[in-house]
């Protein structure tokens, strides 16, 4: 038992943090400051679930992926994908709750499968354990808010925040341009490198842009592209949205596609999520970790 007058050390305050905080703070005199620290990952997530504004789904990829939910949160980092470099950056900045939007262990169900004894997988797991990080995924529900947070934030990053059309929340009416000029605008604004791929002719006239960050599926493309000249896409598949856009060249209404990659397309929405989290979690710092386009191409 602890001597009277001493507060029990929260089980998830690491030894290093205990030293940093200093024993004195743990005496009753330091109680107010300690109370401020005691936001667990579980409590943070409960607050998010209560405030996200969409009903929580029974079947979802969202949830804890690594770490102990009872861990006391020292800081929150949002990131598109919880790669090992991103986890290192978060840990170095003292952000031990990582809110990610893509998998942590290489697949949607996080089952390492054949990688269970893989050295890279084990190194990542060991890093998470050693630094007592907690990883929580927030993809389905952040993406379910209306208007779509990823699309709105992508529009903001492209300088089009005020240009959304009234008839379609995913379509933006921009000043008249060409596919070639728009491609250069998108490349510069999003810092996209190897992920950038374009379908269509550079001289194609563009007025209306359909935004489709993340997965660019075929039904959404067919449904919405009739109202736009070009689709700015995250991740299209060649036998789905790409083939459809390609085929429009043989009709009297040719369309264009600018694919920027899934991760690049989701980056603005993940930054917007950090800003939103700051409005409901004030106990600890919240920041977005930048995602660099992982792909490169031969110059």
């Amino acid at each position, binding site marked *: 038992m602890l001597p009277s007058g001493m507060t029990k050390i929260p089980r998830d305050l690491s030894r290093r943090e205990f030293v940093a905080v200093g024993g004195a703070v743990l005496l009753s005199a330091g109680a107010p400051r300690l109370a401020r620290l005691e936001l667990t990952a579980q409590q943070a997530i409960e607050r998010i679930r209560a405030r996200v504004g969409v009903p929580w789904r029974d079947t979802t990829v969202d949830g804890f992926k690594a770490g102990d939910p009872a861990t006391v949160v020292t800081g929150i980092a949002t990131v598109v994908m919880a790669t090992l470099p991103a986890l290192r950056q978060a840990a170095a900045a003292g952000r031990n709750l990582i809110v990610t939007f893509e998998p942590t262990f290489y697949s*949607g169900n996080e089952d390492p499968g054949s990688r269970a004894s893989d050295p890279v997988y084990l190194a*990542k797991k060991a890093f998470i354990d050693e630094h007592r990080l907690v990883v929580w995924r927030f993809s389905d529900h952040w993406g379910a808010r209306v208007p779509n947070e990823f699309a709105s934030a992508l529009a903001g990053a492209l300088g089009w925040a005020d240009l959304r059309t009234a008839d379609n929340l995913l379509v933006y009416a921009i000043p008249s341009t060409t596919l070639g000029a728009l491609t250069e605008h998108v490349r510069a604004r999003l810092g996209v490198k*190897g992920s950038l791929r374009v379908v269509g002719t550079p001289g194609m006239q563009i007025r209306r842009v359909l935004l489709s960050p993340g997965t660019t599926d*075929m039904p959404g493309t067919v449904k919405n592209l009739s109202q736009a000249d070009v689709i700015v896409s995250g*991740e299209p*598949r*060649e036998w*789905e949205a790409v*083939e459809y856009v390609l085929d429009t060249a043989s009709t009297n209404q040719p369309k264009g596609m600018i694919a920027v990659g899934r991760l690049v397309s989701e980056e603005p929405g993940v930054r917007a999520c950090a800003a939103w989290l700051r409005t409901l979690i004030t106990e600890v710092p919240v920041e977005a970790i930048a995602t660099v386009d992982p792909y490169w191409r*031969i110059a």
Partner: protein
Amino acid sequence: MTAEAVVARIKAQLASQGVAWREGGRDTFKAGRPETDVRGIATSGMSTFDVLRRAAKAGHNLVISHEPTFYNDRDVTTDLETDPVYRAKQQFVAEQQLVVWRFHDHAHALRPDPLIAGSARALGWTSYASPADPRVYVLPATTLGELASAIARRLGDRGIRVVGNPAMKVSRVVLGPGYGMPPLSAAADVVVGGEIGESGGNTEYALDAAAAGQPKAMIMLGHMMSEDHGMQEIADWLRTFLAGLPIAFIPAGEPFA
């Protein structure tokens, strides 16, 4: 010979090579009338509108496509009936009396897999095939940057995407054309293939592996840049048992500008 009869001949040939026909898969007629008389056959990685136009112009009215015609894996057209692009493509098929038949599942069942063989041929890797594993190629040691440059030049691949350190040494390659490339693991330096989901998977693994000091890489050629070539192998194979019919490979080509 009708398109139906051509497909019957293909099924018989597959059976003679030990590939039993399985119903319920992807390999069905997608457009046009199966009873149409065939004047010539065109094989292609994907029956895009442009491929259909080139096939019609060449008088090859049976198009054998590896990938879908109508923008989804099973060519479900229920929600496309009022779509102008779909309607224009169907109208062109009807006007030109084309027939489109898909050859995917059973093509991959042939040994060696002609899609892998075609990709390896296009890459110039045939002689580097590992005798132990049909997907592994052991190349003369190079760097990832040099390998990617050589591939891009050779294939004329504009949309090639690479993850990994350009300076890393590579030799052992797993080749997986099409979608869903083989998972990266400690067993190879680099996976080369068509396209794969960017969420998690090989992209995340390669980024983690570099950070963990065990560099791995992935080169995505694009779906057509990796599987189109194998339909040349299919054209060659069709000629062995369909003498008298003009048969041509019409590449879908890279969709990206």
